[in-house]
């Protein structure tokens, strides 16, 4: 039987090519994702190990609030104690912190994810990850060294003066350019280094505090032993850690911050692509098996056992799966290289290094590829094995085109169950809502696949009606062809349906997110102007700006809002820092209990959701541990509902009076401003802008601009999602093209007849193309319907679970575009089959058996 399978495959290589390609693309996407993740992970690991190679021990504050939380300081005087420890060769004080460098054009350099750092230049080259590439080390007078990537991006050269925001503006002179190891920088991180005294003054904001101490041993003790010895001389609150641990922490931070999310997201989309591929493969196998059912019946009549027929088709699926997966894995490695290039081009400078292909990746690609193909091939195989031997003697095709009773019952039950689950999730309260919607979505997708053939005929009739009307006989034939085999039409359209449904869910979700953001800004923001550092809230504005703006005669109120973190109830929480009493004048936080005016020294305001999950009420005392290692008991003085207000407030609102003593570089991320009575917004804006210019020129925006900036991130996310989903759509298209080619092969005689009685080649092409459009539109309409419903359920579920996303928005224009894309996709998918159909030789077509 195997030799027969192989001969079959050789004879129909072309049909299998389309199938293999769907598997191949899916596997390539998956492999590419895994390889990219491994490559980046390995590269970062190598990088951090290399740059920390000379550092044996790091002395630092032992309070760790996690990534981005900033570090507490330690006394600079510890340097001498550490240097005296036996086995220590050098102990170098280090200052690091936030510093936003302005380029030659006055705009901030870097940002958009990677941190913007400033600190001290460590003179011992073994302890300094940066190497001077040009110029010299800083020697006071606000001289700085900047990393090459930042210098290039900001068009800055040695001898130039520019501004560094710490967040107070500091005039600096560039005297040197440095590289991070061999790289221009650590990814997109910018680094500006003063000498130690300047760094302590500007960054550590102190004359006797530093961030950490880097220690190099004399080689007499291991890192761990040295760390123990150093630790022994340190006071409470200060710890000694090995260089290896610090490297590992850096790697873990990058993984948690960026790589894990990147690979998870990409894997998710690879999953969608594979799901779509599964439908395409299933369909191709179904058709091939149907076309071969007479042969299968003949084999059965000649004495082949049912299991032998089954094995034949399964063997074919396995061979297709293995071959396609192997090629897919190879392609995936290429894709990973390409993606890395794309990231580089997009400005995320990633560490260089070879592509990492692990055994796990290869196994994963192979297993997933073969499983997907097998899964898709096994149902058609079972169907083939059920062919009665007598079918060989019948002339008619065996494939049934009328839906079975079981299909009607199962399809209806599944559709009802899926809809019910999603509805229950959408209307439910609390955390259980989203999982319900998710399960409902899965059931609905299965229901759509089962019930698809039931609706395919009427749907194709309906969608094809305008085609028949507009295109005359050609259109009518196209419509009839789309209707003639509902199961095939449905299976073909399902692939596109799944892809379009995912696109639609994201589109609806994105639109609702934007609408909700607009809505909160509308409802809660009473100000006229916003000074901000951009959509990602990176960087910082000196708190002095809010004060100076508030003093302007054109301005009524100006309140700064900053971001911070503290350990609360065992884990690190994001805080908003502001003046709660003043904040009420520009922002309606929807206070539920207590009064924001009472939130001053020794107190805090929390959102009602936060209060509920921790079981707090007004008057309760809650301990907050800050980055400097000190813990303060804060009294809950107010509860508010407006957690999403201006996307900034979140669960905890801490008064600046509480925050400032615990922080080093106090900063705002935005300042909300109202114009004074009788002053136009435009006049206020120009006055505020003049102040802002002196603080490094953060954006000054009116309400509409602010809303647009806030929602810009959503559009960016959607664009990335669309790009990632494009592959799934392409696979779906190939599925349609493949099915059409197989159908046309089946209809060779019919097309020959049509040509003989006067259908022109152009009409044949048009007929096939329109059939493709009807099928694709069916898939697109189904996908949009499913996507809108699930999107709605998801928005509701999120609203119930988190209190966010209050508004559901239906992005009509975008959805119409999605529908059009579906139709155009149909035209594209139909191009090749149409050409092939039109090229059929009339005489041969008539003569075909």
């Amino acid at each position, binding site marked *: 039987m195997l030799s027969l399978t192989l001969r079959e495959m050789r004879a129909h290589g072309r049909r299998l090519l389309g199938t293999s390609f769907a598997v191949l693309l899916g596997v390539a996407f998956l492999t590419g994702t895994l390889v990219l993740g491994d490559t980046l992970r390995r590269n970062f690991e190598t990088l951090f190990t290399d740059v920390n190679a000379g550092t044996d021990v790091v002395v630092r504050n032992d309070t760790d609030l996690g990534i981005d939380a900033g570090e507490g300081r330690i006394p600079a005087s510890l340097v001498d104690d550490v240097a005296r420890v036996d086995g220590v060769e050098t102990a170098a004080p280090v200052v690091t912190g936030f510093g936003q460098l302005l380029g030659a054009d006055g705009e901030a350099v870097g940002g958009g994810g990677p941190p913007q750092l400033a600190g001290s230049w460590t003179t011992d080259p073994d302890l300094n990850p940066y190497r001077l590439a040009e110029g010299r080390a800083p020697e006071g007078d606000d001289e700085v060294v900047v990393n090459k990537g930042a210098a290039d991006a900001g068009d800055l050269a040695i001898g130039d003066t520019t501004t560094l925001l710490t967040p107070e503006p500091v005039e600096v002179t560039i005297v040197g350019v440095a590289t991070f190891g061999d790289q221009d920088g650590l990814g997109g991180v910018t680094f500006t280094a003063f000498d130690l005294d300047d760094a302590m003054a500007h960054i550590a904001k102190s004359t006797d505090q530093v961030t950490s101490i880097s220690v190099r041993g004399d080689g007499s003790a291991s890192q761990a032993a040295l760390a123990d010895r150093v630790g022994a001389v340190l006071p409470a609150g200060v710890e000694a850690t090995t260089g290896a641990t610090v490297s590992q922490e850096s790697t873990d931070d990058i993984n948690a911050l960026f790589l894990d999310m990147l690979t998870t997201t990409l894997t998710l989309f690879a999953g969608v692509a594979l799901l779509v591929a599964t439908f395409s493969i299933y369909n191709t196998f179904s058709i091939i098996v149907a076309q071969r059912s007479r042969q299968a019946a003949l084999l059965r009549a000649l004495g082949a056992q049912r299991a032998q027929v089954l094995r034949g088709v399964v063997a074919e699926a396995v061979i297709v799966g293995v071959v396609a997966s192997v090629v897919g894995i190879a392609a995936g490695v290429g894709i990973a290289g390409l993606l890395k290039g794309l990231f580089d081009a997009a400005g995320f400078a990633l560490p260089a290094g070879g592509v990492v292909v692990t055994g796990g990746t290869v196994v994963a690609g192979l297993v997933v590829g073969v499983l997907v193909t097998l899964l898709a091939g096994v149902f058609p195989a079972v169907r083939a094995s059920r062919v009665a031997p007598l079918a060989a003697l019948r002339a008619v095709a065996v494939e049934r085109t009328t839906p079975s009773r079981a299909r009607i019952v199962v399809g209806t039950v599944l559709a009802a169950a899926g809809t019910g689950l999603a509805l229950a999730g959408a209307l439910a309260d609390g955390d259980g809502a989203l999982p319900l919607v998710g399960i409902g979505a899965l059931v609905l997708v299965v229901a759509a696949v089962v019930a698809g053939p039931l609706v395919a005929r009427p749907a194709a009739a309906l969608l094809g009606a305008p085609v028949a009307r507009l295109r005359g*006989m050609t259109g009518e034939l196209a419509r009839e062809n789309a*209707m003639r085999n509902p199961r095939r039409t449905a299976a073909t359209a399902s692939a596109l349906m799944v892809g379009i449904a995912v696109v639609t869910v994201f589109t609806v979700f994105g639109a609702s997110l934007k609408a909700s953001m607009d809505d909160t800004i509308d409802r809660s923001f009473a100000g006229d102007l916003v000074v901000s550092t951009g959509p990602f809230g990176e960087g910082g504005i000196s708190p002095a700006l809010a004060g100076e703006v508030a003093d302007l005669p054109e301005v009524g109120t100006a309140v700064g809002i900053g971001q911070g973190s503290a350990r609360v109830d065992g884990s690190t929480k994001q805080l908003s820092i502001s003046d709660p009493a003043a904040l009420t004048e520009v922002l309606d936080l929807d206070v539920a209990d207590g009064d924001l005016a009472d939130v001053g020294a020794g107190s805090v305001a929390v959102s009602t959701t936060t209060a509920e999950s921790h079981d707090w009420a007004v008057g309760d005392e809650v301990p907050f541990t800050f980055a400097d290692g000190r813990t303060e008991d804060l009294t809950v003085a107010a509860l508010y509902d407006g957690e999403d207000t201006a996307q900034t407030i979140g669960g905890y609102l801490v008064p600046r009076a509480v925050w400032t003593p615990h922080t080093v570089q106090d900063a705002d991320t935005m300042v909300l401003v109202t114009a004074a009575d009788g002053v136009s917004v435009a006049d206020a804006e120009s006055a505020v802008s003049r102040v802002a210019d002196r603080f490094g020129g953060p954006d000054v925006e009116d309400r509409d601009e602010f809303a647009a900036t806030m929602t810009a991130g959503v559009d960016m996310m959607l664009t990335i999602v669309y790009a990632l989903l494009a592959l799934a759509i392409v696979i779906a298209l190939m599925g349609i093209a493949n099915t059409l080619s197989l159908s046309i092969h089946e209809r060779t005689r019919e097309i020959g007849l049509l040509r003989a009685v006067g259908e022109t*080649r152009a009409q044949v092409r048009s007929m096939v193309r329109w059939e493709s459009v009807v099928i694709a539109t069916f898939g697109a309409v189904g996908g949009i319907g499913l996507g809108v419903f699930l999107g709605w359920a998801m928005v509701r579920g999120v609203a119930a679970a988190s209190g966010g996303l209050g508004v559901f928005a239906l992005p009509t224009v975008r959805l119409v575009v999605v529908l059009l894309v579906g139709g155009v996709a149909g035209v594209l998918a139909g191009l090749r089959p149409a050409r092939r159909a039109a090229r059929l030789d009339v005489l041969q077509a008539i003569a075909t058996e």
Partner: protein
Amino acid sequence: MSAPAASPTRTAAARVVDASKVYGEGATAVVALDGVTVDLPAGRFTAVMGPSGSGKSTLMHCVAGLDTLTEGRVLLGDVELGSLSDKELTLLRRDRVGFVFQAFNLVPTLSARENIVLPDRLAGRSPEPGWLDEVVRTVGLGDRLAHRPSELSGGQQQRVAVARALAGRPEIVFADEPTGNLDSRSGAEILGFLRRAVDDMGQTIVMVTHDPLAAAIADSVLFLADGRIVDHLAGPSPAAILDRMSSLDRSTPDPTAGG
């Protein structure tokens, strides 16, 4: 698209002049037609007979604009087919020629009625209602028009095919073994309809067949062998045809070659 014929005979619906058709090249070349010259008279029923491989189907395909000659000329009315592009040939088939094939004559997704008006609809025309009714009545399909081909018997399907061939009032109808797949009664019915189309409607019909009984219904019979016209019988009887055929079969020893 008109190329005036040298001297069109008023009574010829189609003329074939020195027609040759060679398939393949060099040593493997097969001569299907070898210098055939013949007039197919208008308003008459002509049968074309010959053993397998004699070139009878090739001749029909070339006259009908389904295939092109290697050498020579085919005139359909006053149009020389050799000068036409593929599209012009398609339009000619649609507008001026009718076809009845042995099997698979109908588009399975269309009803009987839609199949009958298919060429007109492809041309974007509406069929003449009166004429359509007459054709449908002639072939006796009145109550089956809404049915799909799969719901019709083989004989009924072939009647739909005849109706389609006649519906557009073509200059010439080509029938390729139209009774080959039918039982004798249905076959006789179909032949009756074709005969009536010639007698009552003045239709020109050319029918390729290997059945002497079928050929006997024609006004005249052309005999082909080895790509040449070897004989011609007017007003033939089945016995006379059978006699000619058996003499041809004896002279062509290779009955396996395709027609």
